[in-house]
């Protein structure tokens, strides 16, 4: 697919999810409860390691419910899911969706901040979606975002919607939150969307090529951003080590003192005798005792 689609649907069973073939769509798993079925799905070894990109779409009410140790509970329940290598990220930071939040978004957002902080993240992306209005209430994702709900009162088919979407598309990096029509599997939707793309490409080859080029560029750019973050962290880490080496009484100083006291203060005749022992032990070449140009030590 030319754009990133987050395919939002309720949790299926682990076996049916695993049997779905890879479509390239990002699975947006709608989570209404964190219970046994949640754990059985996400912590099924086959689901955990299946390699398909996914993200969480938490129901607003789930986050709004009142109980003790909320931050602990959500962090420990969701932590390893965010750490999963297939979890959907932007610029290397995890993306979380909140559906139909009723309370003030700031409360929920504060909770999310606490959860991600608990897990050690410097940054994360959120998107509050009001499904009923097919609108985004609040987000920090700096992309061209769209919501399509095939279930809630859509008066046109997925195919028609996507064709007009492509025809009206301007060059920008898009992320589409897609609620599939009732009982449509992701593979069916994927083939429908794919057919529309093919039709559009045949009719508008240059526009399609331009959109594709833009998408590829955005992905390369994102990878560069991630690499820069990694290099920056690496540089910071090296700077810290160097700063540590510069202060007095460091390990280097201790090693240097150790060497001095253990070896350097010995008499010269003793050190020379030591070189002869090295030759007898086969650690040093005999000729090197008389000739500085020959190789001294064996590798």
């Amino acid at each position: 697919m030319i754009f990133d689609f987050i395919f939002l649907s309720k949790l299926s069973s682990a076996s049916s999810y695993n049997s779905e073939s890879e479509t390239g769509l990002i699975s947006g798993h709608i989570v209404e409860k964190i219970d046994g079925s949640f754990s059985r799905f996400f912590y099924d070894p086959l689901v955990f390691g299946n390699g398909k990109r996914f993200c969480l779409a938490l129901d607003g009410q789930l986050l709004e419910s009142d109980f003790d140790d909320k931050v602990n509970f959500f962090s420990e329940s969701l932590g390893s899911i965010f750490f999963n290598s297939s979890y959907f990220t932007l610029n290397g930071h995890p993306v979380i969706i909140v559906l139909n939040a009723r309370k003030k978004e700031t409360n929920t957002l504060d909770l999310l901040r606490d959860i991600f902080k608990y897990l050690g993240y410097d940054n994360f992306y959120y998107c509050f979606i009001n499904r009923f209005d097919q609108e985004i209430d609040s987000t920090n994702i700096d992309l061209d975002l769209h919501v399509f709900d095939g279930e809630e009162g859509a008066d046109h088919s997925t195919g028609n919607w996507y064709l007009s979407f492509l025809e009206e598309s301007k060059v920008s990096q898009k992320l589409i939150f897609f609620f599939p029509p009732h009982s449509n599997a992701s593979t069916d939707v994927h083939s429908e969307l794919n057919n529309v793309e093919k039709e559009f490409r045949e009719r508008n080859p240059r526009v399609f090529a331009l959109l594709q080029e833009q998408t590829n560029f955005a992905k390369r750019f994102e990878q560069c951003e991630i690499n820069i973050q990694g290099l920056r962290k690496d540089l910071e880490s090296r700077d810290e080590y160097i700063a540590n080496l510069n202060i007095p009484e460091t390990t280097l100083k201790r090693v240097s003192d150790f060497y001095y006291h253990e070896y350097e203060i010995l008499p010269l005749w003793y050190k020379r005798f030591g070189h002869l022992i090295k030759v007898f032990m086969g650690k040093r070449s005999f000729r090197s005792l008389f000739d500085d140009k020959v190789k001294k030590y064996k590798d």
Partner: protein
Amino acid sequence: MSLLVVAHIYYPNDWEYLFERLLNLKEYSCTFIFNIVNPKYDKEKVIQYIRNNFPAGILIYSPNHGRDIGGKLAGIDVALKLKIASDFTLIIHDKQSPHTPTGLAWRNELFRVIEKTELPKIFSKFDSSEKVGIVGSQKFLMNEYDFSIGEFNSFSNEILKELISEMNLNLTDYNFIAGNIFWIRSELITRFFSRHAPLKIRSRLEHGNVLDFHKGTYIHSWERIFSWLANGQGFEIAGI
């Protein structure tokens, strides 16, 4: 016999040294969990290597929180949640210790626990005594506790005492493997971390690549507590 490896990868470039030795474990029934620090600029290369050489390996990316201890706790959390059954667990990371000129010699010594020739000896140590809970490098078996004053000769003295009390560890021996690379009976990990959530412990560790040469840290303290999981549950540490 089934094995579990929890490996943390942080440093750029030198990770192949660890992976090449981990390949020795493919002869055994072994589950690999790799935690890669995120962000990491050569991550794609690491992933490619893992996909090619450990295709069934479980891969997680976690932020640099708690250094190798944080990464290992993230890996242990995954192992517990996925209910991965094993007899022995290897706790390891791509150790470099750039702060010390002897860092690589330290690493090479600790990595003896994954040398092909050492592996049978390690497993026979576990077999020979039911009391052996951890096996690691004898050379780096350390003890900082001064029984006469009941204090640790460490910047982390206060934190260590706080955590021992909080974790209800009844210790008779304070030996630990400096460098935190060793084999441990998996039951010790499962029992302890089922009571003390790994991510909760991780959340209290210091963030980023914090250096702890001149001050006490939770990271430094947990490096020791990892080894004390054995003594705290009535087991011993054996050196090789």
